[in-house]
């Protein structure tokens, strides 16, 4: 049984090493390990029954993760009312699922998409939404505060949800959350529960760096530095609610869930 745990750990580590910057991958692997090994099946004398119990729990974990997006989409339907305007930042498949389900339920709403430079996530998202016949408007990233008056709510996904209840997401999320908070607009985060990570950043620089090159279109003189970080940290006080497969949670519940799992 110990051998099996060691094998699992090795497999998890090699999977994590493929992309060391991805928080959801690390968090997912860690949670999977905890979930699977945290069972009294390990005390069973019979190796085969213990193994089948582990496989059962592993499959259940996989099932929960697959279904997570459907559950989140269902839970968020109550929050999208007819005639509302939603601001979306970044390309999150969970948020796309939420909006797809709302469109299928014949809700009338419009979406404002930030351009999402330099990844151009806004263009991809607006393509998808146009296919669903949802009215979409593209904004440049700097036009968020300008348009915040007409927005009813902000919807973002998350790369990782940290212990404090804050989120790590694409660069620009913190800015949007700050503007929304100062203008009293709710910020909703749609994230699966396997993204809960045991990290606790105290400020923007307190995370593992994830850099990606930015193409400005024109050559930059070599003496000029460029901020290339791909993501930022949004503290929990700027987030209103988290839609997860565990339910609709307030940011403070993330730590409770992690404590119960890790204790």
């Amino acid at each position, binding site marked *: 049984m110990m051998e099996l745990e060691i094998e699992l750990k090795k497999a998890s580590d090699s999977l994590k090493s493929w992309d060391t910057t991805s928080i959801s991958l690390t968090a997912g692997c860690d949670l999977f390990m905890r979930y699977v090994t945290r069972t009294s099946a390990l005390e069973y004398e019979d190796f085969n029954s213990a193994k089948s119990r582990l496989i059962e729990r592993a499959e259940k974990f996989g099932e929960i993760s697959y279904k997570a997006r459907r559950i989140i989409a269902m839970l968020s339907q109550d929050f999208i009312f007819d005639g509302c305007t939603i601001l979306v930042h970044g390309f999150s498949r969970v948020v796309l699922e939420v909006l797809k389900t709302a469109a299928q339920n014949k809700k009338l709403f419009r979406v404002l998409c930030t351009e999402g430079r330099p990844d151009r996530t806004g263009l991809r998202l607006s393509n998808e939404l146009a296919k669903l016949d949802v009215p979409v408007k593209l904004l440049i990233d700097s036009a968020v505060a300008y348009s915040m008056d007409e927005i009813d709510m902000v919807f973002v996904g998350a790369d990782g949800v940290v*212990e*404090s209840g804050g989120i790590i997401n694409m660069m620009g999320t913190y800015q949007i959350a700050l503007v929304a908070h100062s203008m009293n607009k709710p910020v909703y985060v749609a994230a699966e529960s396997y993204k809960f990570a045991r990290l606790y950043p105290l400020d923007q620089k307190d995370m593992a760096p994830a850099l990606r090159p930015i193409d400005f279109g024109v050559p930059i003189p070599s003496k000029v530095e460029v901020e290339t970080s791909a993501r930022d940290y949004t503290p929990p006080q700027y987030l209103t609610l988290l839609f997860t497969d565990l339910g609709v949670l307030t940011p403070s519940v993330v*730590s409770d869930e992690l404590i*119960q799992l*890790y204790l």
Partner: protein
Amino acid sequence: MHPAVYKVGLHYLSGDISGGNARCIAMLQAFQEVIKDYSTPPEKTLSRDLTAKISSYVSFFTECRPLSVSMGNAIRFLKSRIAKLPLTMSESEAKTTLQSDIDHFINEKIIVADKVIVSHAVTKIRDGDVLLTYGSSSAVEMILQRAHELGKQFRVVLVDSRPKLEGQLLLRRLVAKGISCTYTHINAISYIMHEATRVFLGASAVLSNGTVYSRVGTACVAMVAHAFDVPVLVCCEAYKFHERVQLDSICSNELGDPHAIANVPGREQLNFLDGCAKSDNLQLLNLIYDVMPSDYVSMIITDYGMVPPTSVPVIVREYRREHLWM
């Protein structure tokens, strides 16, 4: 009155032993001596008689100095262990079990807990940091020493206050280790806070709503840190968590010696309040503890990891359950 208990009580009275962990360990070690020398009187059961004896010693300690939350939790633990002893156990067996339980408690809840706290906390210290701390906390001292051993480049700002001036002993030890320190009093806190990148504070207790109960002046430091957007990290072992909720510093506190604030030792010409102390409309208020609301705390570092202040009731709930299973 057992001599070990008497000795520890006098240490509390004189202030030789101070600080939540030190007081708790001294008390538990005194109780170990008591248990070692204990023999059940005839016609009495060990558990009831020993519990009564412990209670009488606890009231003696309370006379010397009111109990801290850490001591209160340790006493609850000891009493529950005594109550759980099976009646069929022989006296010598019971005594050795209790003594090893106390050893186990001290080791697991204080010594190992401190090691875990230090290992978590040093990950939050980066090169070039300016760490601010207040007064003298055993956990914070261990963190600073460990970070220095690991070769991290940082400097310390130590804020102190009258009348106890507890920071001075900590200052000596840090300087002796080669850590560069700045020493100041709490009246300069708003001046010095803009230099600090992290604030590390100790706690006497953490209450159920995330409120931190610690040495008077800590709340001030945390409030100024919050105003300057400096993260406040409170380091506290989990055995100091308590279910009660306190909204302000007055409803439950400890009063120190009023003359300590009226007089400045060694400066006779500044003792303007001589003779006024007896006046009816003057009350000299020397509070020992104060209460810091959870909004000022960025994270609490415990042996269960780094948690936000909103997760304290979860730990209290889980920790008590583990307690019952022990």
